[in-house]
């Protein structure tokens, strides 16, 4: 992995607590991402989403982000000006969030929103912009792109909305896509479709992908490498295929706690939170 797209070393994010002291929610996380698919798995409060947001510098004060190194293609993201950072977002790194309902502007037509993502990054004649939008909608397998482009976000189903989001995020051809629980709000059948689309696009364009999710199985089937986060730290790193051989008690506990389709267990094993250092 010599050509790392993103290098993160000792990333820390803290927020002030009501009693005054600062609480670290990400505690010294380090990893590198190349043109590969990296999964970050953890439960709520593990700091996985905050990590994703910190990379794009989306943590607002009073939250505080520090890192020994947070570099995208060799440029230190923490030193960039806000203008330079805006350029990185979208054209360099883009992010798909959990719920399209909250990420799309309700009063702007879908096609215009996708076009806007393109126009802010490159100046192009409007006819070409239109063509690119339609192409992009086709790429996320929307059957009738001309019609969908004219719809408003509330006229889309959940799966369609998320595909539009992906089109919007990928139209500027970023090098790295951060997908934060991109399919948790969707049905299983739609979930598979959406992830297949992301997967195909990532492969075709040779992008890097950071896939953040709480779902171990999902991540292991769509990623090459997995980081397991717990209470702000990376507790396990392994190749996706070898998840079953995970060593850390937390990872093993998580795997065992999942009910199976052929479950005949009388009781599911639960994590011993004290052993994990939690409460």
């Amino acid at each position, binding site marked *: 992995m010599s050509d790392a797209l993103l290098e993160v070393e000792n990333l820390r994010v803290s927020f002030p607590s009501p009693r005054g002291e600062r609480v670290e929610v990400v505690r010294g996380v380090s990893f590198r991402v190349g043109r590969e698919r990296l999964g970050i798995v953890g439960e709520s409060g593990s700091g996985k989403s905050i990590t994703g947001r910190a990379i794009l510098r989306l943590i607002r004060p009073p939250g505080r982000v520090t890192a020994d190194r947070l570099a995208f293609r060799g440029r230190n993201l923490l030193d960039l000006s806000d203008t330079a950072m805006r350029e990185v977002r979208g054209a360099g790194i883009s992010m798909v969030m959990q719920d399209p309902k909250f990420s799309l502007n309700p009063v702007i037509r879908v096609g215009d929103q996708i076009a806007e993502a393109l126009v802010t990054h490159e100046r192009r004649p409007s006819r070409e912009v239109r063509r690119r939008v339609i192409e992009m909608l086709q790429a996320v397998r929307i059957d009738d792109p001309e019609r969908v482009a004219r719809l408003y976000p509330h006229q889309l189903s959940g799966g369609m909305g998320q595909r539009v989001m992906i089109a919007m995020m990928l139209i500027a051809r970023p090098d790295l896509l951060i997908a934060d629980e991109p399919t948790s709000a969707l049905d299983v*059948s739609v979930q598979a479709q959406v992830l297949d689309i992301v997967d195909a696009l990532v492969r075709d364009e040779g992008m890097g992908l950071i896939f953040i999710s*709480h779902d171990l199985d999902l991540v292991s089937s769509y990623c090459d490498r997995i980081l397991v986060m717990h209470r702000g730290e990376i507790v396990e790193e392994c190749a996706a295929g070898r998840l079953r051989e995970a060593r850390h008690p937390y990872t093993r506990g998580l795997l065992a*706690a*999942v*009910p199976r*389709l052929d479950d005949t267990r009388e009781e599911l094993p639960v994590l011993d939170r004290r052993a994990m250092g939690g409460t």
Partner: protein
Amino acid sequence: MSALSVRNLSVSYGDRRVTHDVSFDVAEGESFALVGESGSGKSTVLRAISGLAREWTGDISALGAPRGHRVDRAFARQCQMVFQDPYGSLHPRKTIDATLAEPFLIHGIGDRDRRIVAALEAVGLDRRYRFRFPHQLSGGQRQRVAIARALVVEPRILLLDEPTSALDVSVQAEVLNLLKRLRREQGLTYVLVTHSLPVVSFLADRLAVMRQGRIVETATVAQLRADELRDPYSRELRRLSQGRATA
């Protein structure tokens, strides 16, 4: 006598008919699951049984007594519901104590203090949570409170609307274990709505697969585990959730 009998249930929201002639029976002490994707009408059926959806035709009877279209107190004592979202189903300005006291006040039941402590104990919540507000609890703890609230009036039937789908994997396991234990201890009848077949396999005895407002297949959990579902849609659902597990 069946605990719950639903005959030709058609529920509408305004002009839109959401379910079409849904019929099923749940035996006393049985755990029955309604499975389907969003928009299949599974939650709507549950809302009609509980009394939250009022525009329906057909017959619903619980423990032999037919059910009217409104919420009535006698029915409330026999049948309670646990909601999906533990963040939305508890009153944000009431302590756990006040939330659990409410059913006693409604039904004029005395000896509240002892009963509240017992209810917390039954769902495995420490006594020190009693005077906290919901925002001071985790999602799993809140869902335990919601379960305790449903059980304090000692109902015979519990309606569960995606009870663990908003929870983390490890917390989901705890809540599922709790639900299984409570059913064993108190001989409850469950009607469970979920989109997750592994959860059905763990918690239910029988299931009905719903699609676009109709039941396409009713099967036992043994058939589900053995991959002996007949309907093509149910088989597709099973295939998609093979090895995929979180709710």
